[in-house]
Each structure stands twice: as structure tokens, then as C-alpha cells.
């Protein structure tokens, strides 16, 4: 399940929706990304996320399908917010459900790594000195690259 929205979400309700009625699920792994109040040593007042809606939808569907193909998942949820967010606000939610924990842990990490490098979102930070676009990080590319050709665990 994929959603891109300006509104906040309720992680507990999302986890409940993911697992309800499926007793074949033995484990759920979730990740929530939050806006920090400091970046590169500067205090952040707020952040605005811009995206490319039609391309975002396609990339997230692709990433979800790839996770379902690589791991034996019973379900997964991806929620990404856009618009202006304050420190402490939730930005992104990823949850994966599987019979066993290993697939849930690995696929959740995979979803975040691929999302960060493939989904067309851009962050603009408001600092005391004005506004700036966040630069992409090599460490995110490296994290995404570790899944290249990696066999799925059972």
C-alpha cells in the first residue's frame, strides 16, 4: 500500500491495518523518518518537501513490487509526506510484514534505501541564514547499491 500525502499519519493505525486479519504474519518491521532540528551543524526551522507526483507514484509502486518479489512478504506499507514540515514531524513510514523476521527487517531497509535514491522528492531547509536545497548524499547511493544483485533470504 502506497500513499503520498501532506497530512500526518498514525503509525499505530497503519501497523494495525497492515496486519489485521492475517494470522500468517509472524513479524512486522517498521521505520519512521522524522525531521531533525539540526543539519550540517545548522539549526533547522522547517523543511519543505517538493515532489513529482506522477513519477513518485510510479517509482514507489516499482519499489514496492521489487520488495514483494525479493522477499516473501505478506504486505507492505509506504507513506511519504510532502509540503512544509517542522522538526519532530514524521516524513516517511515504511512497514513490512512477513512470516519471519529476517525478511521483514531486510525488506524494510531495502525499501528505505531505494526510496531515498529513486523517489523524486527534494528537501528545502529553512535555516537562520535563509533557505537551501538539501544536497544528495553519497552514503545514500552506497546504501542503495548494497542491494544490487543481492539474493532474497527465506
Amino acid at each position, binding site marked *: 500500500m502506497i500513499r503520498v500525502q501532506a497530512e500526518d499519519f498514525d503509525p499505530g493505525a497503519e501497523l494495525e491495518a497492515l496486519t489485521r486479519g492475517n494470522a500468517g504474519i509472524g513479524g512486522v518491521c517498521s521505520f519512521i*523518518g522524522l525531521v531533525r532540528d539540526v543539519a550540517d551543524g545548522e539549526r533547522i526551522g522547517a523543511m519543505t*518537501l*517538493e*515532489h*513529482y507526483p*506522477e*513519477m513518485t507514484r*510510479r517509482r514507489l509502486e516499482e519499489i514496492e513490487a521489487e520488495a514483494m518479489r525479493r522477499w516473501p512478504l505478506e504486505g507492505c506499507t509506504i507513506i*511519504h509526506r510532502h509540503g512544509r514540515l517542522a522538526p519532530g514531524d514524521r*516524513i*516517511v513510514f515504511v512497514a513490512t510484514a512477513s512470516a519471519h523476521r529476517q525478511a521483514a527487517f531486510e525488506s524494510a531497509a531495502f525499501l*528505505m534505501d531505494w*526510496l*531515498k*535514491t*529513486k*523517489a*523524486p*522528492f*527534494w*528537501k*528545502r531547509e529553512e535555516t537562520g541564514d535563509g533557505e537551501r*536545497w*538539501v*544536497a*544528495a548524499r553519497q552514503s*545514500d547511493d552506497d546504501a542503495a547499491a548494497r542491494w544490487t544483485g543481492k539474493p532474497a533470504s527465506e
Partner: protein
Amino acid sequence: MKLVYFAWMKEKAGIGEETVNPPATVTDLGQLVEWLKERGEPYTSMFQNMAAIRAAINYEYVKIDAAVGPDDEVAFFPPVTGG
């Protein structure tokens, strides 16, 4: 052909999207960029450093030598920073 821009490219362009009609000799993305730069600012500064730019055609990531046609939606943007 529809062009769309995001993040700092959108700011430099001053607009989020526009429709252009390049000549028939423009058949790939590299030629499109060169044709835009010939039109002067803001394109000259937008496309100054191609290493800092990513592109998509019809919502799919492409390389600079990708074929492009009149009915395509071409997007230019910096590397993504979501998540």
C-alpha cells in the same frame, strides 16, 4: 514537448513547466539541452553543470543520450533527497 523542472532548477527557470517546440533536428536529450542553452538565460545557468542534473522522460529516469520526441514530457531536476 512539455518540460518540467523541480527544486533549484524550477527556481532558476522561474516556472515549473513550459511547452517548447524544438526543431526536428533535436532528437535526443543532449541536443535538447544544447538547443535550450542557445536560447540564453535562464537556460544557460540551469544547464551549466550537467553532472548536477538528472532527467526523466515520461516519468522514467533516462541518460543524456535518450531519444526525445514532440509528445514527450521531459523533466529536469537535481539528484533526489527524499526519505
